[in-house]
Every structure is written in C-alpha cells, then in structure tokens.
C-alpha cells in the first residue's frame, strides 16, 4: 500500500510549531498533505489509521546507537536493532562505527544500508574518523559521505592527539560532516569501571574522574576555536558531567558550533544505582553523582542539550554476567527512551510535550543535518510515530525486540505507548 491516511489524531510537530488536531496523508514515502481535522482530500485506496486520542509526531531520531553489525550479530543485528528502534517510536538511527571491522570504508558504510540487512527503519551510518579508529590516520571523509555517512567519530576510542583531532575537525568541515567525540581522556581512566567518588571507593572499583570527560571537551572546544571556521561542527556524545555541559554552554555563548546529547540513563540514574555491582548499570561514560545527574536534567530543561540519544549498546547476557570490572560497557535504550522521557521530562519535570519530542526528532535531525527528517511538513519523509500519551505501562526487557537485555530499566514504569511507527510510508511497528 502506498498511501496511509492518519485521521483524528493530535499532531505535535515541533519543527513546524504545530500542536493541534490534524489529519495527515502519507504517499509514496513522503508527507503528501497535512490538513485540519476532517479536511483531508479523499485518497483512493489509502489505508486509514484512526489516531483518535493519540499523538501524531515526527518519527523519533536516535543519533547514537550501536547496531553491532558487521561482526557481532550475537549481540544485535541491523534487523533486530532497527526492530527495537521501531518499537520505541524511532524511524531513524545513526549507527556508530565501532563494528568489527570498524566502519572506516565506503564499502562497509554501504553494506550497512543495503536492503539485505532487513532494517525496519532508516539507518544512517557514522563513519570512523581514523583508520580502524586507532586515532592515527584520517579516513577519506568525502568518500564516506558519498557512501551515506552522516558524521565521523571514533566513538569509544576518543581522539586524544591534538593534531589528529584538529585535522579531523578541519577535514570533516571541508566536506560538511560533523565530528562526534566520545569525550574521555583515557589516560585518566585506566582500569576504571565506574564514576570516581565515594561509591567507587566503597565498592573497591577504580573510578573515572569527571575531568576525564570535561577535560577532553574543553580541549576539543579549544581546537574548534582555533580553527576559526563556522563550518566546523563538534558534537559531544553522551554528555554526563556538569563540567562538560558548562564548557558546551560557554562555547555556544562564544558563537561556536558545538552541540551535545544526553542519554536517558544520565539524567535519571546515579552511581548509587550500581548497587552491588549491577553490570546493567555499567556504561561509558559511567553513571555519575547526584549533582551531575541533576545538572543533566537542568541542561535539558534549559535548552543547552540538543538531543536525547540513547547510546543503545546491546551485549549478550553471558558478557554481562561476569565480574563488574570485566563486563563490557553499555546498556540498551531504544525501547525505553520515549517512555522514560514522557514519564520524567514531561510527566515529572513538566517539560512541554512538544519540547520533549523536539529533543527526540527535530533537534537531532538538525545536529546531523538529516534533510526531510524530524518534521511532518508536506514533502518531508513519511516518518511518523503515533502514540498514546496517557498510557502507563511496565517495560519488560524479556519481551523486547532487541536481541539483548542489558538494561537498567527492566520493570520500570513508562508513560506513553507507541501504537504505530511508520518509516518512509511503511508501517514498521504496530502494537498488538
């Protein structure tokens, strides 16, 4: 079926400033018409979705996910990861290059987008900044971009050398790509497996100081400043510390193109949640202190944060059922992001629904320059999420679509249930 009419719903499209009843016609993968309720032109053969009592919004965009393909299909595949994305209301995901092999070539970038991968939603590969993400030789950014890469990063392997980072920022700017940095000065985090502080001391674990993050953010911002070009764009991944946020805030005041994202676990959980070595609370950057958690929330409310991104990082249960220090970093997030954001940012913090949705669609689209995404204006991609904003439900990891279960949010109360996710005019997920 090539046309879908969504009727009787309440459209919230932050990109167009719409928060009103609207009917929408999707045709040939694009938004064909947005009309006042009941005023849609008749479209023969269109499938009709009755969205009465539901919110209709641009499909969500997660600019930081690990789909594990190629190379680690036992954790997740592009098919299962995007199925999880669709179930969570996401229609676009940007896939990190720390695959095996590392996505540092146009061939792998194209392979990830090939129809044979069976993706339910659009996958935007992010290319590795350096060969093998070893932080030494830059990749061919023009070729990566031509193959479909939307940014470059060495996520998980931060670029420490000033000269390489400077070259990366400059080369990416020349071809119009953003540079995403996982900000961690790994010289300060040797052997560390959680946030430095009283909890780490109590648990006998080596800690990662907040300065490992903020120091590298400050260094990167200095490099952006020195490059003196408004084409240079630095995006700080999974910001977790008040100090790093302060640096981003100041950089923006100075007119630099510096953006940042925050993951739900960083504005909801603290290092106390590690409890007795719960490896599902182990990720990098780690859960921080209560003060840092509060700062993440404030930064979201203040508008300093450009996007909520999950850092969806699936791992098999046998990999997490090991000693805390030996467990891999990362938690899943695609199926819990909307429910947590609606419950905590909208429900508890009373952030307007449109602003919450903007952080999950229009703003991340802007960060990566994804044209026609994160918006339901006519001519945009027919990427839609339709959800019941009032529905309360309990997340059960075992029932999820992701191949992995490593989440700290198993059993948590969620608000807002996805009923349909439509990706480029096709129904990618439908609640039963």
């Amino acid at each position, binding site marked *: 079926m090539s046309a879908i009419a969504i009727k009787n719903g309440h459209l919230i499209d932050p990109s167009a400033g719409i928060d009103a009843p609207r009917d929408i016609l999707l045709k040939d993968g694009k938004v064909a018409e947005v009309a006042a309720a009941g005023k849609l032109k008749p479209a023969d053969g269109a499938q009709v979705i009755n969205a009465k009592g539901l919110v209709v919004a641009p499909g969500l965009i997660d600019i930081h996910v690990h789909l594990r393909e190629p190379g680690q299909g036992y954790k997740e595949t592009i098919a299962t990861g995007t199925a999880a994305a669709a179930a969570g209301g996401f229609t676009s995901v940007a896939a990190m290059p720390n695959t095996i092999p590392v996505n540092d070539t146009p061939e792998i970038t194209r392979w990830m987008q090939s129809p044979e991968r069976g993706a339910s939603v659009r996958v935007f590969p992010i290319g590795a900044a350096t060969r093998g993400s070893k932080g030494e030789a830059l990749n061919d950014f023009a070729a990566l971009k031509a193959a479909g890469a939307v940014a470059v990063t060495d996520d998980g392997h931060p670029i420490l050398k000033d000269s390489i980072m400077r070259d990366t920022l400059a080369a990416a700017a020349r071809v119009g790509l953003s540079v995403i940095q996982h900000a961690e000065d790994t010289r300060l985090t*040797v*052997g560390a497996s959680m946030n*430095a*502080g*009283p909890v780490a*001391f*109590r*648990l*006998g*674990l*080596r800690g990662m100081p907040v300065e490992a993050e903020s120091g590298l953010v400050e260094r990167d911002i200095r490099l952006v400043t020195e490059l003196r070009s408004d084409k240079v764009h630095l995006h700080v991944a999974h910001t977790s510390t008040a100090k790093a946020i302060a640096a981003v805030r100041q950089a923006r005041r100075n007119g630099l193109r510096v953006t940042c994202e925050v993951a739900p676990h960083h504005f*909801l*959980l*603290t290092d*106390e*949640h590690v*409890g*007795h*070595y*719960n490896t*599902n609370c182990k990720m990098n950057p780690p859960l921080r202190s*209560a003060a840092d*958690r*509060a700062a993440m*929330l*404030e930064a979201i*409310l203040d508008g300093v944060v450009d996007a909520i991104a999950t850092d969806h990082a699936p791992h098999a*249960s*046998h990999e*997490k*059922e*090991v*000693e*805390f*220090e*030996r467990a891999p970093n990362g938690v899943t997030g695609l199926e819990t992001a909307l429910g947590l954001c609606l419950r*905590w940012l909208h429900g*508890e*913090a*009373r*952030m*307007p629904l449109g602003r919450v949705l903007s952080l999950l669609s229009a703003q991340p689209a802007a960060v990566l320059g994804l044209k026609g995404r994160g918006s339901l204006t006519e001519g945009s991609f027919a990427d839609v999420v339709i959800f019941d904003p009032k529905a309360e439900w309990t997340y*059960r*990891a*075992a029932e999820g679509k992701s191949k992995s*279960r*490593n*989440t700290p949010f*198993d*059993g*948590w109360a969620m608000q807002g249930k996805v009923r349909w996710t439509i990706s480029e005019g096709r129904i990618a997920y439908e609640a039963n």
Partner: protein
Amino acid sequence: MSPAPVRRKLHTPPVPASPFPYHPGSLLSVNDLSLDELNHVLARATALEKQDPLTRDRILAKRRVALLFYEASTRTRTSFELAAKALGADTALVSNLSSSIEKGESLKDTGLNLRALGAEAIILRSNSSGAAWLLEESTRLPVLNAGDGMHEHPTQALLDLRTILAHLRGGTTKVNEKTLAGVTVTITGDILHSRVARSNALLLPRLGAEVVLCGPKELLPEVAASEGPDSRGGVTIERDFEAALKRSQVVMMLRIQAERLAGLQLDLEEYKAGYQLTGERLARLAPKAIVMHPGPIIRGLEITSGVADGPQSAILEQVTHGLAIRMAVIERALNATALKSAPTSVRTSSARPAKPASRKGARA
C-alpha cells in the same frame, strides 16, 4: 490558566533494595551481619575453639565445602581449609593455577559446576571487587567472601575484632554499639587498595570504635572519609602518622600492594620516613597500643622486624583468631537453611539463574 511551571529539580529514581545476600548463610560483607549475628559468630568461634577436636569434627562431617581461589593466598586459604576440616567437612580446592579457570571458564560456570558436584558452600577469593556477589547470585549457595579485589574481606575484619576484644575487652563475645567506645584504631598504609581497611572501617565503628585512616594522598584519597557504616561518622583521615599513633590503642599496618598500584609512582624512602612503624615511634607515641597486620608483612617497609616480633605485636595471634572465626562462619554457612525468596526486581530476568537443586538438609 497558565501551564504548570517546569520543575528544575527532580528526585532521583530510588535505588532498588539490594537482593543480597540471597542465602542467609552467606558472608559477602561485614554489613551482612546484624549485631545479633555478630554475637553469634563470636560466641561460636569461642565455643568451637574450646571444643574437643574429636567431637568438633562431627559437626559438619561429610558436608562439602569448595574453596575457589583466583588469587595466590597462603594464610587465608590454609586458614579456611583447616577451619572446614576441623569441623569435619570435606573440602575441595579449585585455584586458578590448576583448573579450567585458566581456560577461560566464567566464574558463574565454575560456581554452577561446583554446585553440581555437591558443594554446599563456596569460599571465594578473587582479584575482582564484587566477585562474591556475582557468585552468590549465580549459584544461590552460601558464599563466604575470602577477599574480593579492593573491596571487602569480612572474615579478616571479624578476626581483627576478635583480636582487639581479646586484648582490650577481656575476650568478650557479647558486643554492642558501645563495646569499643573510646578505642581508636589507626589503619595505616595502602588504604586505597585494601579490602581489609574497608571491612574494618565498616565493622569497628558499629561497635563504637573510632577508625583513623592514615597514609599519603596517593594511597588514601580524601573520599575514604566517607567510608564507614553510615553517616554517623566514626571514620576520619589523619595524614600525620605520629599524631595518629598518639591517639591509638590499636595500630593496624598495611602493606603497599605493588601489584595494584597501576602505574602509581611512590617514593618508598619518603614513605618509610612518614609512615613506617618503628620501635622508636611505637615506644615514644603508643607504648601500650597493640600492633596488628593482616599480612603478608614486608619487613623493613611498613613495619620494622623489631616491631613485628616485639611484645606489642598481635600479628600471629590474629592468625590464630582467624581459624576460630572461620570455623564459626563456615558452620553458619552450612547450618543456615531458609533461602530468602528472590525479590522481583533485580537485573534482567535472564540474569537470574534457576533455583538451585535441593541441598542436603542442614542440621540445626
């Protein structure tokens, strides 16, 4: 009507209650013991120590205890092994030098195999903090933590307590919140890497003792002052060793754990000048204090030979107290019966193992 204002502060979602210990016979942390249980362990240690070996070795006759040691250890392993055997238990030693551990088997699988072989309790020494919790969650057997990484060493703290009680409180086995009121215990040295320091800092203040941590910043970060049983305090930092000595009734020395320093540079001559327990310092500042050390001691570094072998030293007594304490906690492990029902909200359901196969009925 204007919309409700945005709330800039939100409470942190609560940390779920700890499901540990799953087994009432486990001793993962000194915090697992209530004051009543602590008294029970102390009383049983004394009773078992005095009991005729010929009747004592029937207490756990033919019961199976596994010793799982991932770290070289002479004193602790031998102590646990002799304690188990003194009660008549069969012991099986699995160490990383002689087993499938080196072939990459996970702790979970090793634990499950030991359980399948009939182990009724596992005594675990690991270089990873938290390993005992993982093993207990995986096997649901009583697990005795014989030292996990830099985290805890509960039987060491118990034997230290018994040593202190023997010297300062007439060997009483009845303790309460005030038993050690007025007693200052200074723990000096490599606090950062010490599970002994952590367990003692959690245990001794609960009985009224003041624990003073002493050492240079590299080995004793400021954050250590937050250690202790709760917010009441009872744990302080004193950088000046001589000032700490002057206040102390108990001086506990720790070795520098070179294997855990992870690139940390330390000037040993400077360290000795500041923190070595010498006969001169002891005589001048704490002539009545008892000197303790969990071992292994590095003579000439944190402590001089003269002090280690001197009249104030309780170092070898500690070893003897260890045997009694370990008999008591092994008996407790195997005689505890009821398995606490598993709570509903821990980790993912996939992380929760099946209920263990039925174990031999324990004796009262």
